[in-house]
């Protein structure tokens, strides 16, 4: 079946990122103090191989098979999420949560990672099977349910970071399916209301502004009543919701606003990460030489804060290169999504973009205190088998989509 060549751009960018990531992981293990990161690059090397095999396998699977498999995969991942809620265990920066599935004491993976991909497939299948892009609130009930179920289950674990990824996927795919930006904005308004509800004056102003927007845009009666109701409801439940958050989540959100409030405990990660990055300067302290990492001041330097190692040792220059590579990855994937042969493939690739983008922005952002700290890995960098394989599966899908579109006559460049 091999006709046209593989999408070389995607392969090059992905391989660059993977090697960059592996090199960073190796450095993360080079410490003067024994840490858990010491030998991880060996194991990541294994995942590296497994991931490439998975990528090649998926590349050889017809997209129609994926479309056909989507509901089953989705149902299976939701089932796993249910299981994990009952018997899950915690790890890393979120020791107390239930995000890991373990068998006989071995943690074999986080079902939420699988659920992300399954949701992308399911949503792509659902949206592409419709004649029109959703135009009003009732049209959005289906997509909202598809994303909402795993979203809420992940939130229950609780894993705020992964839950955010579902939100990212949801908005990205709706946008790509052609939902009007106005409607997307209106859907985001309950979230804005939730954030502003902690300040009564700001929230009151927001409701006035929101009413003015509704008057100007004149959406369907049903829509605006629901959106208004949702905004007011969010304002009302904000405080009870806050008190229901786990203390570590509250601390993380609070320390995001002011890391110095509790420098030895909750704010420790945020401060030490910034110190490591900030001390890197233009060119960094040199590969494997970063003192903050070497002396174990930098926490979780092989998982959630792997990017801080880049910042400390390779400086702003290294950060710029890494971020540029990610930008190129997104642009390459975007072109693949644009040129896909069918809406399902296109939506699927854009969903993958949404997944990656949320991960990268949140993870990199939190290392410089631009985003609150949520335990969320950096694609192709962070140590961890299940997420790494999921990422390569996604890349395999994207390669397949690129291949198919070329086979149907798109030029190579």
């Amino acid at each position, binding site marked *: 079946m091999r006709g046209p060549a593989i999408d070389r751009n995607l392969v090059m960018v992905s391989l660059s990122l993977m090697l960059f990531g592996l090199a960073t992981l190796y450095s993360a293990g080079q410490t003067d*103090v024994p840490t858990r990161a010491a030998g991880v690059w060996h194991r990541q090397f294994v995942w590296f191989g497994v991931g490439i095999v998975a990528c090649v396998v998926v590349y050889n699977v017809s997209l129609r098979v994926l479309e056909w498999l989507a509901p089953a995969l989705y149902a299976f991942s939701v089932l796993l999420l249910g299981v994990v809620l009952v018997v899950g265990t915690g790890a890393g920066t979120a020791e107390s949560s239930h995000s890991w599935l373990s068998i006989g004491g071995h943690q074999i993976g986080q079902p939420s990672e699988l659920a992300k991909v399954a949701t992308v497939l399911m949503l792509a299948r659902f949206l592409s099977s419709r*004649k029109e892009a959703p135009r009003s609130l009732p049209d959005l009930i289906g997509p909202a349910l598809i994303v909402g179920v795993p979203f809420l289950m992940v939130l229950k674990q609780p894993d705020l970071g992964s839950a955010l990824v579902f939100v990212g996927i949801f908005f990205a795919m709706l946008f790509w399916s*052609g939902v009007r930006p106005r409607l997307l904005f209106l859907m985001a308004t309950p979230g804005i209301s939730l954030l502003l509800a902690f300040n009564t004056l700001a929230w009151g102003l927001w409701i006035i502004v929101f009413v003015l927007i509704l008057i100007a845009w004149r959406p369907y009666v049903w829509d605006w009543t629901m959106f208004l109701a949702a905004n007011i409801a969010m304002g009302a439940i904000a405080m009870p919701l806050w008190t229901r958050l786990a203390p570590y989540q509250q601390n993380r959100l609070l320390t995001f606003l002011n890391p110095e409030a509790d420098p030895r405990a909750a704010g420790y990660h945020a401060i030490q990460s910034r*110190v490591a*990055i900030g*001390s890197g300067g233009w060119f960094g302290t040199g590969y494997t030489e970063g003192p903050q990492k070497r*002396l174990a001041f930098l926490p979780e330097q092989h998982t959630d804060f792997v990017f801080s190692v880049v910042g400390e040792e390779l400086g702003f220059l290294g950060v710029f290169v890494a*971020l540029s590579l990610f930008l190129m990855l997104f642009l390459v994937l975007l072109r693949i999504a644009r040129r896909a042969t069918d809406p399902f493939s*296109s939506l699927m690739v854009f969903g993958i973009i949404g997944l990656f983008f949320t991960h990268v922005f949140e993870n990199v952002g939190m290392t410089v205190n631009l985003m609150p700290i949520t335990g969320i890995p950096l694609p192709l960098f962070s140590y961890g088998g299940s997420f790494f394989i999921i990422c390569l599966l996604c890349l395999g899908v994207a390669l397949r989509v690129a291949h198919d579109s070329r086979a149907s006559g798109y030029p190579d460049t």
Partner: protein
Amino acid sequence: MNGFDSYRLRARADVARLVFVAAFVVLCGAFFRTQVIQHDKFQLKAVTNRLRPISLTPPRGSILDRHGRVIAENVPGYSVKLLASSSDSLRAVLVRVQRFVPVDSARVVDIIERYKQARYQPALIFGDASFEIIAKLEEHRSVLPGLVIQAEPKRLYPAGKSVAHLAGYVSEVTEVDLKADRYPGAVLGSIVGKAGLERQYDDTLRGNEGVRYIEVNARGRLVREGAASASLPPTPGNPITTTIDLELQRFIDSIWPAKVRGAMVALTPNGEVRALYSAPTFDPNSFVGGISSSDWRRLNTDPARPLLNRVIQARYPPASPFKLAISAMALKRGLIRLGTRMPEPCRGGMRLGNRVFRCWKKDGHGMLDLIGAVAGSCDVYFYQLGLQLGLEAIIQDGVFLGFRDKSGIDLENELSPIWPSSMAYFDRLYGPRHWSPLGTTLNFSIGQGENTQTLINMVKFYQGLAGPGTVVTPFIVRPSATKERSLGLSEKELDALRHSLIAVMERGTAVASRRADLAVAGKTGTAQNPHGEDHGWFIGFAPADKPELIVGGIMEFAEHGTTVAPYVVQALRRYILGPAAVGPVKMGVLLDETLTPQRDTAPRPLELNPDSAAARAAEDSLRRAEIAR
């Protein structure tokens, strides 16, 4: 599905591209701000994260005697410190340390308390660790994270307990002292002088601390020493040369009878202190590296109060040696001359009004001139002389002669003597008409009453008698800026007083201590002590015709001044005639010599006034009030 035509996709892709680039710019901006704009701030944080300053103790300046012999010096020592990230981990490591070397539990509590005050500094475990301790800890270094062993100069007093009150001792600066800024330049952990010369000349001796950086990891454990940052070497302190004669100092310690409390001090006529000794004494070396709490408690609760420097911090009624002051006053005022006799002979007492005031000698001295009265220490003679002078004149002249002032020796915490400032003092103290001017006059004329002096102050007065009639502020290192003060006596009068003091030795109360090889002049005294046996005084100088050294001694509960005299005479002989003259010291022989029929006992002071201890306390509070004003 509609809406996937290339035109609309292109529009959406443009929006998406914009979002990606915007996100890229935002992230790059955030990193640029952190890494380039705020680089210095975070670089500093990173350095303070991992570098811990460890202060380097400067070698303290030596204290030398006048011939360059060592009173205090430094020898290499080792300190053991622990770096810890929390008090819990410090406690855990201390428990492990206890497995190898003993650390008592009170000390552990102490260490942890101190650690809490300065978490980023290594906690001091042993200030002065022996080689065995170092070897044992080094051997188990792998299980003792944060262990810092540092070579440090440590203080050594080769003469040990014989120089304790003179040299003082060193110890870590306390928080109270730091707050009061009593030691300018000292920081937490600095070793400072706490008493004696170490305290007085601390600024000169201490030097400046250096600093060294060590690199630690996130758990506060030592990673490597001598990290990138440069270290600052400590500046050694300056040595001081004293006027002390260390051999004399050691000699006094060697002859001092065991378990006797008291003091001895030796001055030259120009005010140089040759020896300064207080008993009971202590070993100043026990303070090096931190005294154990049990030793500290023992020193502080011992009823003999070994930390008290009895030369400058104890006051005694001056008793018979004060008769020379009364004589000096009378001579200066022209009331008497050497041959002057008092109207009444001594018949063992003297009738005044309807009361009899007794002399210490029940048989009486008979008719005496001044020299005879001093030699025999006749109370009746001085009662009459005191009455001729009058209380007001005695008080005035006492102030003039320096009995109201500190000696001014260069040691801290000298006590002021007690001496009334004027007659009004008694009215303030007891209320007008509640005290007897007559009885008080008699008491004052034999050195009792509201008059207590430190040993150094009395010896200072005798130094004035021994020299050309001027008293000089005694000093150990640097002469005082205050000018010498004349006693106001002519050369002839001085000569006469010296002769009376020679008579004391030749045929008077101290005849038993007389030695043919050295002409000593001196005066015994027995200070009445309401709390027990009387205190004995002896102040003497030699050679009598051309004094080179003035030595004063006091022994508490010695009953008689004659007990003290042989010790003072021995000290004078040791200094002037050299070690050969005194030979190897035999304590028993010295004590036997004190068994003599000639003893002056203290006359009971008149029980006219309230307990003198209460009076002294009242005096002190009055004085404090005056200073406060």
